[in-house]
C-alpha cells in the first residue's frame, strides 16, 4: 500500500502516442497501479475549443524506491520494446515528501472581483471590510472555480447588474459560483440549469455552504425544450440571465435567453473570445437584445475572453 510519507521517485518516458500504452505496460510491472499517461495536446482557440492529441506524449510512474540495478534492467527492457518510433530516455526525479491531499490547494487564494465581491476558499481566512460581499467556494469538478477570466468577468458584471430582489437564471451553472454570487449581491433567488449531470448538485451544495439553500436551486437541463421546471415557466420570468458558456451555445440560446428575460431584463453572456465576438453580437441583435457593454480579460496564454451585457428593451 502506498503511504503518503517519505519521498517518491517519479519516472518519465516521452514517446510516440501510439507507443505510450506499451511503455505503460512495462512500467506497470515496476510500479503496479502507479502509472499514468499524459498525451500532449493542442487546443484550438476558436469556437468550442476542440483539441487534438499531438504525436508525442509522456508516460510517468511513481515508485517508492528505484534501485540502480532495477533502473538498469528497466532501461534494457525499454530499449527492447518493439516501438513504432524511438522513445526518449528514462528520466527520473525525486519528489520530496509533501501533503499530497493538500498540494492542489496552492492554486487557490482569496479572489477579489469588481468593487466588493470576494470569493474565498474555505481554508483561507479573510478579514472583510465593510461593504465586502464574501462568498465561500471550494473548487471541485464542476466548472466555475473562479480561476477562469470568463467566470471573473461574469462575477463583475453581476455585481453591476443584479439589483435587490432580482430573479436570476444561471445557464450552465457549473459549480454555482455565479448563482451564489447573484444571491449574495441581493437577488431574491437564482435558478441554475446545466446539461452536465453533476453540476446542479455542486451548485446546491455551494449554495448551502453560503447559507442560500432554497434561494439557489439547480437542475439538469437547459432553456427551451429541456427546461427542467415545467411549473416555473422561463418566459419573461427573469431580471437577469447569466450564461457563461461558449460562443456557439450562447448564440444558439440567445433567442431563448431573450424570451426568459422580463422587459428591461439584462443578459450577461460570456465564454467567448475576440475571434467569435462578431458572431455573438449578431446573435444578440437577432434575438432582439441591445448590447450595453462588453468587458475583456486576458488569460495566461494571452487570449482575450469577453463578457457582454445586453438588455431586453421594455
Amino acid at each position, binding site marked *: 500500500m502506498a503511504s*503518503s510519507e517519505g519521498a*517518491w521517485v*517519479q519516472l518519465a518516458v516521452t514517446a510516440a502516442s501510439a507507443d505510450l500504452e506499451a511503455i505503460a505496460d512495462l512500467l*506497470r*510491472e515496476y510500479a503496479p497501479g502507479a502509472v499514468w499517461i499524459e498525451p500532449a495536446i493542442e487546443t484550438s482557440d476558436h469556437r468550442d475549443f476542440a483539441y487534438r492529441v499531438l504525436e508525442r506524449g509522456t508516460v510517468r510512474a511513481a515508485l517508492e524506491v528505484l534501485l540502480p540495478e*532495477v533502473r538498469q534492467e528497466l532501461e534494457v527492457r525499454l530499449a527492447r520494446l518493439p516501438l513504432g518510433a524511438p522513445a526518449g530516455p528514462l528520466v527520473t526525479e525525486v519528489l520530496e515528501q509533501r501533503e499530497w491531499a493538500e498540494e492542489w490547494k*496552492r*492554486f487557490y487564494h482569496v479572489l477579489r472581483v469588481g468593487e466588493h465581491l470576494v470569493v474565498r476558499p474555505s481554508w483561507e481566512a479573510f478579514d472583510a471590510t465593510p461593504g465586502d460581499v464574501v462568498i465561500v467556494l471550494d473548487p471541485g*469538478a464542476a466548472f466555475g472555480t473562479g480561476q477562469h477570466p470568463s467566470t471573473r468577468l461574469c462575477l463583475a458584471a453581476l455585481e453591476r447588474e443584479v439589483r435587490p430582489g432580482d430573479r436570476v437564471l444561471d445557464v450552465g451553472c457549473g459549480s454555482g459560483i455565479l448563482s451564489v454570487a447573484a444571491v449574495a449581491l441581493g437577488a431574491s433567488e437564482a435558478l441554475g440549469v446545466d446539461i452536465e449531470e453533476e453540476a446542479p448538485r455542486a451548485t446546491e451544495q455551494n449554495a448551502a455552504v453560503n447559507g442560500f439553500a432554497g434561494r439557489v436551486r439547480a437542475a439538469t437541463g437547459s432553456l427551451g425544450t429541456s427546461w427542467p421546471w415545467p411549473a416555473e415557466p422561463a418566459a419573461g420570468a427573469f431580471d437577469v440571465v447569466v450564461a457563461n458558456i461558449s460562443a456557439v451555445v450562447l448564440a444558439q440560446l440567445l433567442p431563448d435567453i431573450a424570451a426568459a428575460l422580463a422587459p428591461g431584463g439584462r443578459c450577461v453572456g460570456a465564454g467567448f473570445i475576440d475571434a467569435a465576438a462578431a458572431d455573438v453580437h449578431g446573435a444578440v441583435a437577432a434575438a432582439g437584445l441591445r448590447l450595453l457593454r462588453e468587458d475583456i480579460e486576458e488569460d495566461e496564454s494571452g487570449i482575450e475572453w469577453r463578457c457582454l451585457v445586453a438588455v431586453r428593451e421594455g
Partner: protein
Amino acid sequence: MAKKVRAIVTLQIPAGAANPAPPVGTALGPHGINIMDFVKSYNERTAAQAGNIIPAQITIFEDRSFTFVLKTPPASDMLRKAAGVPKGSASQLLNRVGSVTHAQIRQIAETKLPDLNTKDIDRAIKQIEGTAHSMGIEVR
C-alpha cells in the same frame, strides 16, 4: 462551454483504492484539481471492480475543474489474468511465460473494443494477439 482543456491524464490505478498519495497526488497535484473530489468519485464508481486496474481518463479544464471517464483494464493485465501469469515479476525477461486460448483472446478483444482505435473485432483480436506475443504469452 467556455471549457478549454488544459490537460488530459490517464491514471492506471487499482479500482476502489485511489488515495491522495502518489501516483494520484503526483499526477494530479500539479494540475491543481481537487484531489479528494476525484478520489471519492473514482472509488465510488470503481468499487465493484476491485482487484483490477481501471484506468481513469481525466480531462482538466482551464479553470482546473475536471471530468473523468473510466476505461477498460489494460490488455496486458487481462492477458496476464487469463494466462494465470503472476504480475509484477520484473525478472521475467520474456520467452514463453504462459498461454491463452483463441476464445480468451476474443473475449478480451470484445471487452477492450470501446477503447481501441478500431471498431472491427477482427482487427481488435489481432491487436490483442500482438500484445500477447510481445508479453511472451502464447495463443493456442
